[in-house]
Every structure is written in structure tokens, then in C-alpha cells.
């Protein structure tokens, strides 16, 4: 079975010969026409259209964008802010940076339309500190748009004014969590806020109603208004509309980014047909489908899925259609679209030690379970890798993870515990035998900080 052709909407011009990131090129390709049309419409009509489109957030949680917008407190009398989450930090994810680097005006247009739709007068792009070039490109693009009357005062000659500022983060994963991002934007430590009472839609940036959307999500808004919600609904599957960008990394022949309609390809098609299959002489062992915090899938495991009519079907990993709901049904998530592939050369204890080191390093340290648990998990897995593994370590590390998930202020608790929970659940034998498995014992190069 061969895979269908890519359906590039967001990535339409990425890597296109002759396409540059200046405004002239963007406008030559029809850019900013949607914005010009949008500002003549009623904001609530635009919001309705986005809600109707079923657009789900592309940052990781997959929450309905229209619903998120509908939570905004529009009666508070306070200004409403829109914040673009360009803190793309989830390991295995590299889609937003391409939009920013190669097609920044697409993001700016999507942002401005979303601002107009939500009566926003000030937007911020929060870009991770490790993207200095991206920040520079965005600054320049915003200035171009400002000069063209598309950002700033009296947009497209209307009464509507809205400006965009670029804010660079200082290098922390937790700044991608929306309330942590807001704290950071306010100039504080990025400690996520407790919810309740600090729901961003009501008490967000500077205690004002705030919308935080992912870069890719806002780009989708532009295309929804371009083609209309009804057309957009035809892309993908019900409740999983539009396209998704998959960032495939790891042990495949052709890693890279691929844009498909949600659910249009299965995991097997993506990895075997699109990405060229495993490296010569290797076989696939496991795949993390939505960024490193998503639960891992083991090749060979079977999923019994309930159909709507009550019957059941069985899926292998290869059979899972790549959309939000199917991946959730398989016990993991679509997350940020970062597909991390591991073949039979990988030892799972060592892979987990790597992931655990990342999350222990990135925990903000605010609340107890994540702060202490993430480092404890890292200490256990690092010790195992150093050659001091015990048979009971797998069970212990999973139990530590169980004590974190669901008990923390923000979703980092889940992000740091799901890898451990799923690795041990699916590769428990490797954790048990790691002590004696001399062959798989790591070299000193895996010394984790």
C-alpha cells in the first residue's frame, strides 16, 4: 500500500524554489488578501467560522480553538491580548521554526486575522530564546507588514489598529506552557499558574483576558477563512479537521516534515512509505507519535478499538490513522506532531534515561511532585545506565511517575511521567534484565547531566 500524496496547506511554500520570506513574495502569492477581506467582516462571524471549522490546537493538547476563543471574557472592560506561542520546545518537534523562517507573513496574517476576530489590540509573539534568527526574521517581517499598513495603526485603511511585538524567551521548556509563558512574558520566572483561578481566557497576561495559540494553529485560521469552514471540514476526518505536519526524526531513511490531512495516513504509511522505512538491516522497535512526552508505542503491540457501532477492531501500530482521536484511542496522543522513531538498535532504558534527563532539567521546580519526581526518575535511569541497575528499578521508576501524573499545577507532570510510565509498561522486560544485559550497557558517552 502506498501513501497518498502530501497535502500541503501550511507548508505550501516551504522549501519552494524562489520563495523568499519578504512581503513582496508573500503578496505576489496572494498574501494578506484574507486579512483585507476579514477586516471588513464582523469579528463574531469570523469566530463562528473558526468554531465551525473544528480547528484543534496544534501545540500539543489538541484543544478546540473555537472553544478556546469562546471562553474569552469579553465583558471585563479590560484589553484582550493574543499571544502566539512560538516556544517550540517539545523534543522531536520542528514545524513552527520552518513557518517562522520561510513563511513568516503567513503567521503574521493568521495572527492579525485572529486579533481582529477577537477585538485584540495588542499581540505578542513569544519565541523561544534558541531561535535568534527566527526572532530577527519575524521582527523584519512585522516591520514590512507595518509599513504596508497591515499591522499597527488603521489596518488596511480601517479604524482597526493592532500591533505585534516579538518577545524572546530565555531558554526554558516550561515557557511553552501557556500560563508559564504568560508569567515569563510579564518578566517573571515561568512558573505556571494555578487554575483556578488563573484561566488565561479570564485572568491571563497582566490579569487581562488572553488567548494563547500555537504558531501553526494561527496559520490554519488564515486558511479556514480563505476556503471557508465548510471546505475546511472536508479535510481530515470528523473532529480531526485540517492538515497536520508530522516532524519525523530518528531511525527512518527519510526523516523530515510531512503535511497530511488528519487521519489520511497511518503510522505504517508514514514511516514505511513516506519516510522510506527502517535503516538497512534494522527493524522498527518503537515510536513516540507526538513529541517526547507522548506515550510510546511498541511495534508488535495490538490495540482493540471500539467502533461507534459498538463492534471492535484490532490495530497494530502500523494501522493507527494519524489523527488526534485515533492516537488517543491507542493510549497516546498526537501532541505536537513530533514523531520519534526508534529501531532495534535502541535500548529502551537508555532512551528513557535521555528523556528523563531532559524533563528533570526542564521542570520549573514550583510544585513538589514534578520537581522532586522528575529528578528522582532521572537519577534512577541514569544510575541504571551507569551500570548500577537493580531488578526492581523499573517498577520503582514507574511508581514514581504514577505519583506525579495528575497531581501537579500544569501538564508538565504528565509530560515528564508519561514516557516513564509507557516505557516501563511496554518494555518492562528490558528494565528487568538491564542489570545483566551486558551487550546493551551504554558507553560512557551517555553520561547525563
Amino acid at each position, binding site marked *: 500500500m502506498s501513501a497518498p500524496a502530501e497535502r500541503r496547506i501550511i507548508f505550501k511554500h516551504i522549501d519552494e524554489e524562489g520563495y523568499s520570506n519578504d512581503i513582496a513574495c508573500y503578496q505576489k502569492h496572494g498574501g494578506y488578501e484574507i486579512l483585507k477581506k476579514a477586516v471588513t467582516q464582523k469579528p463574531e462571524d469570523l469566530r463562528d467560522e473558526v468554531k465551525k471549522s473544528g480547528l484543534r490546537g496544534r501545540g500539543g493538547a489538541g484543544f478546540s480553538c473555537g472553544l478556546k476563543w469562546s471562553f474569552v471574557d469579553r465583558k471585563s472592560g479590560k484589553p484582550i491580548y493574543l499571544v502566539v506561542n512560538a516556544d517550540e520546545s517539545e523534543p522531536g518537534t520542528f514545524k513552527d521554526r520552518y513557518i517562522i523562517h520561510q513563511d513568516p507573513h503567513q503567521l503574521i496574517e493568521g495572527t492579525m486575522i485572529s486579533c481582529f476576530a477577537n477585538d485584540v489590540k495588542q499581540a505578542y509573539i513569544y519565541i523561544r530564546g534558541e531561535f535568534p534568527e527566527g526572532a530577527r526574521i519575524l521582527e523584519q517581517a512585522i516591520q514590512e507588514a507595518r509599513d504596508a499598513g497591515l499591522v499597527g495603526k488603521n489596518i488596511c485603511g480601517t479604524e482597526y489598529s493592532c500591533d505585534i511585538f516579538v518577545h524572546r524567551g530565555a531558554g526554558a521548556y516550561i515557557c511553552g506552557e501557556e500560563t508559564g509563558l504568560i508569567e515569563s512574558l510579564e518578566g517573571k520566572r515561568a512558573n505556571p499558574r494555578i487554575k483556578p483561578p488563573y484561566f488565561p481566557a479570564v485572568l491571563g497576561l497582566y490579569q487581562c483576558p488572553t488567548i494563547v495559540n500555537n504558531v501553526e494553529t494561527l496559520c490554519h485560521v488564515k486558511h479556514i477563512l480563505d476556503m471557508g469552514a465548510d471546505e475546511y471540514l472536508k479535510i481530515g476526518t470528523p473532529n480531526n479537521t485540517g492538515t497536520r505536519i508530522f516532524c519525523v526524526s530518528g531511525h527512518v531513511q527519510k526523516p523530515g516534515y510531512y503535511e497530511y490531512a488528519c487521519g489520511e495516513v497511518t503510522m505504517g504509511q508514514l514511516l514505511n512509505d513516506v519516510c522510506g522505512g527502517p535503516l538497512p538491516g534494522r527493524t522498527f522497535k518503537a515510536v513516540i507519535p507526538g513529541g517526547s512526552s507522548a506515550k510510546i508505542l511498541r511495534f508488535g503491540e495490538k490495540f482493540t478499538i471500539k467502533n461507534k457501532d459498538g463492534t471492535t477492531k484490532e490495530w497494530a501500530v502500523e494501522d493507527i490513522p494519524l489523527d488526534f482521536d485515533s492516537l488517543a484511542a491507542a493510549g497516546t496522543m498526537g501532541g505536537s506532531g513530533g514523531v520519534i522513531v526508534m529501531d532495534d538498535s535502541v535500548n529502551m532504558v537508555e532512551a528513557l534515561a535521555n528523556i528523563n534527563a531532559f524533563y528533570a532539567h526542564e521542570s520549573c521546580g514550583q*510544585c*513538589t511532585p514534578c520537581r522532586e519526581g522528575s529528578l528522582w526518575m532521572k537519577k534512577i535511569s541514569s544510575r541504571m545506565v551507569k551500570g548500577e541497575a537493580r531488578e526492581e528499578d523499573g517498577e520503582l521508576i514507574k511508581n514514581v511517575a504514577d*505519583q506525579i501524573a495528575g497531581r501537579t499545577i500544569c501538564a508538565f507532570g504528565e509530560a515528564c511521567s508519561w514516557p516513564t510510565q509507557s516505557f516501563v509498561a511496554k518494555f518492562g522486560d528490558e528494565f528487568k534484565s538491564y542489570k545483566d544485559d551486558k551487550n546493551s550497557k551504554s558507553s560512557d558517552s551517555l553520561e547525563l547531566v
Partner: protein
Amino acid sequence: MIQPAQPDLVTVYIDGKEIAVPKGTNVIEAAKMVGTDVPHYCYHEKLSVAGNCRMCLIELGMPMADRATREPIMDPETGKQKINWIPRPQIGCGTTVVPGMHVKTQSKMVKECREGVMEFLLINHPLDCPICDQAGECKLQEQATGYGRGYSRFIEQKNVKPKRTQLGPRVTLDDERCVLCSRCIRFSQEVAKDDVLGFVDRGSYSTLTCYPGKELSNNYSLNTVDICPVGALTSTDFRFKMRVWFLKQTDSIDTESSVGANTVVWSREGEIYRITPRQNDEVNDTWMADSGRVLYKEVQADNRLKPSSELATSVSAAASLLDDGNVAIVGSGRSSVEEQFLTAKLAKKIGAASYVVGRHGEGDGILISADRNPNTRGALVTGLISELPTTELSQLAADIDAGKVTTLLSVGEDLTAAGLSDEQLAKVNLVYVGSHSNATSAAATVIIPTLTVFEKSGTFINQQFRIQKFKSAVPGLKGAADDRVVLASLLEKLGDEAKGSDLASVWAEIAETVPALSGISYANVPKSGLLIDGSAWSGLDFPEGESLHFKPATAEASA
């Protein structure tokens, strides 16, 4: 569901117990009202909610209703409305009650959450209780016993963090013991208004510290030690001095100013080791100033006056001097109500003019007011003075110069600090009744050594006209007499009818003769004090500005 009678009350169910609590109450406080303790570290009732320790996780449920019709969904077995329990545990501190809310504080999930948090808090904790000052009053110890597993599964290296950091002149920090609850940070921001504390580094390596170039030196810094749930912040003064379980606690009042912060004096075998605030939500909440915590040092100060003769002898000598007809008495705004009453009575008996020395400073808007006497209002209420005291006794000085005053009694006041010269003091027969030596005691003909506030009992009336009790924490210096006894003896010697100098007797007399204090006895003043009617003095221009739980009468009137 039973609807509460009052609209500002919300009915909730804590472990099945129904209770109506005020709107806006959180689950920890609501549980407290039914006698259920929800363990916590970061939550403090007088600070904002941080929700970071996760110790107060509870299970939360709401009565089920049909989405479309809003009709309650009933459980056919129990006949009651079904409860929809939220699968994720919620924090008790950050959850405000809503009508019909159900809370489980003892379920399996809650117990597991607490066990987990306890284990996490202890894995990097040094477990140095045997040498830790907090031992005995440590939340980590208490809750590990109450909710922990009792054993450790941690075999890794513990984190290493700074030990013995001097955050300021009075506070020492051990970062390894810190549970990162952020109470001290929030206190500094919200109460002391001195934002100097913060965390640096992240994750499990997060470390409490002062911002570069800053120090925790404000006059409220030691409150961070009080609210630190563990032994991370310790008082540099109290550190390593005494195990807290050996200490006796005595209720007292801070004498620094007319705020009258409620305190506890901690002592053992006649020696005081520390003073901490005592909660009074009408006066000082749970705070007190650092400056009030070292006052106990006056008990063993080098300049304590030691008795050189029997009390009876010195009282006789003093009485004969006071029997001269041209006497003035300088009472004190630091004396208790009882002492001021007896001083006023003495002045009346011998026809002496009476004064009180005013003490003024700048109010800090929190718990130190502009009036640095703890009991100026007592002097007014007991009739010792009828006008606000001044810092300079110029009338008295003029009277001495004019020969109108030839004998002077000072109750604990150094008159040279109140504008009287050494020459003027030399002109009069001087009786000094007080606890410490000074220029006035040096010039006195008769000295009667008395007790400090920590060695005697009595009452003060603070800026709110709240009468508050303090009690003797330690026995008095050998041979030194209680001021109250001295004044009563002088009265008796000067021909007054003996009525007894014990508190009950003096109060019987006060209640009878002082209108504002009628019906009050020492025994019936509650722990949190008693507001009396101060309207008779509302015309006076008191120096106090606004402070915690206090607005000046003029500000109140204009508001």
C-alpha cells in the same frame, strides 16, 4: 439539598459532614470548621494562595444533574443525589467552596497523594532533625508521621545546596531543608512589602536566596522564620540555643508601640529564649516586628537595678519624702493599666501633679505605630493624665525652677530624656521606681527596683482601645518588687486604706471607679483582648497613622 438560611453561607459536605461556611472559604478552612485537618505546607491563611506543595490534594465532587433539564440525577440505592467525583485530585487551598460541593479528605486517592508528596519532600531533605532547631515544631516531621509511608525507597545521591546562608542580620537559611513552599517570598512581598527573596535555578535544584545586592533586613524578617514550615529559615538569635519542647509558653504583649501585637514568650527555668507572635486577627494577624523579639534581653541586662535594702525600708523612705506637699509624679505610658491606676490614685492622695512622658517615632504602617508607648490610652482611661503626653516635660521643669516642686517620683522614666537637666534633678528629692538604671536613678535619693514586663502580669490598652493581658513569663529578679505592689505599699504608707495589691483586688477597685472599665476584671479579659469605649477621648489628636487592622479616628470619620 438543604438551602442555607443566610445568603452569604454556602453548604458543603466534608467527608459526608454537612456544614454551612462563608462564601469564598477554601476547602482547607471549610474542613477546619468540621474539625478535619487537611495537611499543607505552602498555604498560609494570611498569605495569597500558591498551590505548589500539593500536600492538600483532596477529592472533589459535585451533585449530578441532567445537562438538558438541570434535574438532579438520583441514586436509587441511597435515594440521594448522585455525586460526580472529579477523577483528578484538586488542591484544597486553591478550591473555593460552591454550593453542594462534596469533599473527600480520607479517600484512598487522597492518602496516596499525601504519601507521594511526603516521599518527594523527604528524598532530598537532609533528615538532620537531631541538630535542627525546627524539630518539635516541624510540619515535615508532623506530616511525615501522620501521612508518610514511614520508609524510603530513595537510594540515590541527595542534592547538595547552600548551608548556613545569612539572608540578613537575623535570619539564617539552610537551603537543603527548604521545601520551596514560597511562604517567605509571599510574606516579604505581601506583608513586609520588601521584595527581596526569590528562587534561583530550577527543578529540584531550585534554591531560595536574596536577590543580588539585597538582604532580608527589614524589621519583619523573623516572621519568615515563624511561617517556614520546616527548619530552612531559622532565627540567628535562637539557633542552637534550646529544644522547643522544653520551653514554656506565656502569653504576652509587645511593648514597642501602641499597636500591642500579641506575643508568646518562650522560657525555661526562669530564662527567656525567644518571643514569637501570637495570632490575633483583630490586631497583628500572625505577625510581629523583629525589634519586639529581642526585648526579653532587658531581663538580664547589665543595668538592671538590684535591690540594696528590704522593700519595706525603701518604701518607708520613699513615703516620707513624698509626704512633703510639693510633689510631682511622672508616671509612664509603659506601665500597665493597674500601675497607672495606682499611680493616679497616689497622685490624687498626696495632691501631686501627674505627668506621662510621650514617646514618638515614625509609624511603619504595619505593626509599629507612631506612639511608642504601649499604654498611652491606659494613662488617659485611668485618669493619670487628661491630655496627650508630650516628649518634653517643660511645665515640670519650670515648676522645679520656680521651687513649686521639691519632690519628684518617677515611675520607670528617665527624666533627663524628657528635657529635665541634671541641675533640675539635683534640686529635688527624687524617688525612682524602675527596673533599669539611668541618669535619673543615678540622681535619685531613693531607688526601688522593680520588674520588667516579662516578670509581672497586667494589662495594656492599645491604639484601638483594646485592653489586652500580659502574663508573667519568668520569676522576677530576686528582691525586686512588682511595680503594682510598690505603688500599693506607698499608698498604704501614705494613709490610704489597704485594699490589697493583687490583680483581683486592684481590678475590683478599677471596675468600681474607672467608668470606661466598669464591669471588667483581669480574669474576664479574653485572650484576644476586649474593646472598651474610648469615645470620651475621641477629641484628642492621637499621633498614630494607619496600620494593620487600624485606621485613625479622623481617617475613619472622613472615609
